[in-house]
């Protein structure tokens, strides 16, 4: 089926998530959609699959304009979306998952569904038992199940959102074969990804989105350098970098291995020195999150040792790390960092060691006024934290850090903040480095990573690069590595 999008616009408040996007996809094409996190890929796909409605613009299927109100509407028109996290019901049988999405009477005909399922599975070479439970399946198998379900519902356009995340390489080979077969049958595949190698291997044509705009398109064969330039092609404006003179070793990771549901990180060793800033780069979900949490005792390594100033803290809880001067600042400030409903003063009191049993309100108020002033927080001592803006919440989080500190771990220190706040927050963090703390931070802003880090670790699907000297690395190089290109075979430890 031919899919056409005509000047799609979508605003979320001030953010122009889709800015005049026009896209033509002929029937039987595998279309790649590339872009950074937040480039507008997901928004565009949600518009096409009926999860949200565009502010303006048209969608045409085989030349006929259609209006899609809901995902159910979309599937009626033959558009099905495969989400990054499979939308299934794990404690139920596969056949019941199938029936749930379908229109039908009060009493579904299970036998017919099972027969259809087996037929489809055979056709595409999947081997899934319709009577088994969904929780017994791997992520890859759940994906296969979802593809079958969408096809069974009559999908002729399949949207796949980052489908190669979390599946094994043999499942990826199978998935690509299936997608090629579907395309050959005249169905249209839309493949959303940030992985250049996957797009190169699979797609017939690709477009790049950046900051809500369609930046460019390319036909097979692709020029990866050009694609990287389109994805990350900002003007590079690195100011004078401050180079740290590393002091004593603060954090030592020795052959640390981590595992979570999606990926495995194997055998990482790293030495972090006082005064040093290490940036962790990579697309979201490439392993940097678990890595950072493991450095704070918030995630237990499955192998190896975590040492803090020579002391082995492997397997100890976060509070033991905190006791040794480690602080973790989460990205979701209101979910993990601050307590909504409590005031700034109450937060400062909570972050201090209790003095006796009763709270000295006067002391708390003075403390709050002092911190609000020195951290330039736009709020009052009695402001609740949820009433602050994002930038001020981040400042509040920073102002809660106690002395002395040896290691600060930060997820996205400046995400969503205005430039003034970014500069301010980094000046405060650099102060901490001068006082002898080391900093590890995650950021998806490559400029930020190169600007403020001394060394950079790149993550890709659980692989961790050797530390790169930030001064010797360009945004392009970083972009290639993040997209999964230029990784030496041996480095994939």
């Amino acid at each position, binding site marked *: 089926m031919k899919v056409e999008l005509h000047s799609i616009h979508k605003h979320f408040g001030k953010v122009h998530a889709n800015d005049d996007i026009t896209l033509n996809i002929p029937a039987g094409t595998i279309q790649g959609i590339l872009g950074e996190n937040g480039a507008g890929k997901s928004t565009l796909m949600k518009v096409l699959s009926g999860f949200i409605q565009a502010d303006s613009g048209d969608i045409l299927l085989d030349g006929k304009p259609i209006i899609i109100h809901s995902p159910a509407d979309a599937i009626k028109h033959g558009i099905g979306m495969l989400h990054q996290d499979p939308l299934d019901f794990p404690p139920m049988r596969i056949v019941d998952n199938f029936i749930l999405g379908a229109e039908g009477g009060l009493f579904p005909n299970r036998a017919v569904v099972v027969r259809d399922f087996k037929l489809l599975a055979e056709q595409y070479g999947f081997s899934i038992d319709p009577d088994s439970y969904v929780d017994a399946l791997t992520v890859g198998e759940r994906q296969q199940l979802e593809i079958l379900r969408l096809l069974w519902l009559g999908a002729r356009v399949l949207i796949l959102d980052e489908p190669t995340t979390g599946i094994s390489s043999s499942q990826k080979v199978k998935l690509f074969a299936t997608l090629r077969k579907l395309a050959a049958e005249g169905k249209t595949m839309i493949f959303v990804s940030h992985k250049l190698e996957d797009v190169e291997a699979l797609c017939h044509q690709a477009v790049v989105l950046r900051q809500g705009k369609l930046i460019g398109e390319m036909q097979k064969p692709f020029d990866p350098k050009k694609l990287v330039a389109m994805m990350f092609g900002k003007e590079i404006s690195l100011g004078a970098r401050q180079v740290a003179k590393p002091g004593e070793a603060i954090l030592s990771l020795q052959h640390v291995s981590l595992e979570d549901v999606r990926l495995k990180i194997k055998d990482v060793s790293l030495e972090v020195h006082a005064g040093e800033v290490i940036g962790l780069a990579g697309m979201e979900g490439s392993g940097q999150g678990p890595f950072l949490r493991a450095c704070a005792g918030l995630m237990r390594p499955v192998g190896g040792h975590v040492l803090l100033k020579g002391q082995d803290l492997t397997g100890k809880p976060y509070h033991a790390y*905190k006791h040794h001067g480690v602080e973790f600042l989460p990205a979701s400030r209101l979910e*993990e*960092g*601050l307590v909504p409903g409590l005031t700034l003063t109450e937060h400062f*009191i909570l972050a201090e060691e209790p003095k006796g049993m009763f*709270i000295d309100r006067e002391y708390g108020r003075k403390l709050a006024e002092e911190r609000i002033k020195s951290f330039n927080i736009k709020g009052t001592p009695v402001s609740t934290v949820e009433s602050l803006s994002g930038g001020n919440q981040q400042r509040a989080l920073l102002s809660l850090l106690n002395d002395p500190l040896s290691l600060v771990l930060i997820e996205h220190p400046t995400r969503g903040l205005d430039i003034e706040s970014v500069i301010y927050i980094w000046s405060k963090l650099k102060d901490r480095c001068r006082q002898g703390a080391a900093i590890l931070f995650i950021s998806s802003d490559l400029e930020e990573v190169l600007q403020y880090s001394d060394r950079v670790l790149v993550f890709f699907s659980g692989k961790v690069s050797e530390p790169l000297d930030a001064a010797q690395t360009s945004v392009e190089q970083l972009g290639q590595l993040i997209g999964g290109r230029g990784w030496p075979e041996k480095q994939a430890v």
Partner: protein
Amino acid sequence: MMKNSRLANIGFQLAALVLALLFTTLILVATGAPPLEAYKNIILGSVSSLDKISNVLVTWVPLLLASAGLLITFSAGLWNIGMEGQITLGAIGTTWALRLMQDSSLPPALVIVLSILAGMVMGALWASLAGALKTFGGVNEIFGGLGLNFVATALTLWLIFGPWKRPGVGSMSGTEPFPEALWLPMFPDSRLSPWALVLAVVAIVIVYFMLQGTYFGLRLKAVGKNFRAAYMLGIPTWQYMMISFMLCGALAGAAGAVQVTAVYHRLIPSISSGYGYLGLLVAMLVNYQAAWAAPVALFFAALNIGSIQLPIILKLDSSLSGVLQGMLVLFVLMVEGVRQRLMRRS
């Protein structure tokens, strides 16, 4: 601005009260009962004589103790439905201690104090079961507490008809009453003990200051409002949850102890008398603010006592007070939801 919103708040609360009254009136009209007559009887039934006022206060004591305890668990973000069982176990603990010591040569005052302490300890231990199920077993405290309530009821019945049965044959009227020397001293001709009143008032005052002015209270609130962030701020979260369960259980135990030492002087089958559930309503109605718990609990106690004579005079069931109390909580919660929605919109 602040003043306006406070005025608006009071307006919303009054609206809830009016709605609750309106709804209860509708029910009365539907059943063919004269609403005004019913309300008049409730008021007269609670304040028209010294005897009735003293009965209201007898009800107020365990209700206030229960509400005080629940304010602690609510602050920690916990729904301690197991309150009923904790009151029951407090009563059992007190009865057990009294039975052990009633024939000893210890001075009666000491026996009473030790028995009340025994009740508080039992309540705290029973609450710690619900806490342990929550923190170590991943069982929601609502389910754990509810299950333990049934166990507590069964335990009471077994004791009354088994090991602690009256000489001869066990009966629903409870265990053999304790000698008068082991009763909490009362005001003359009433079941109201000044000591019980003191206990309840001291408890709510302590809880008020604990939640308002101590590090413990503030940390408990942080745990209740955002468990994960509290952990990140260095608060030992599960320990705080356990402590809040045990403190609440101790106050529940005190309520049970008062029921035994001051009101019934024995263990009876339904010794908790629903004060645990009623306490939940009080805590919700005062929006978890300790300062309001005392007057609201008094109001609820008055409703309970006032409706006692409804069956005799108007042939109405005395559960009418429960209808009014339930309606009040529902409408207050609903009005609060409406208020928040309006605020978000403006």
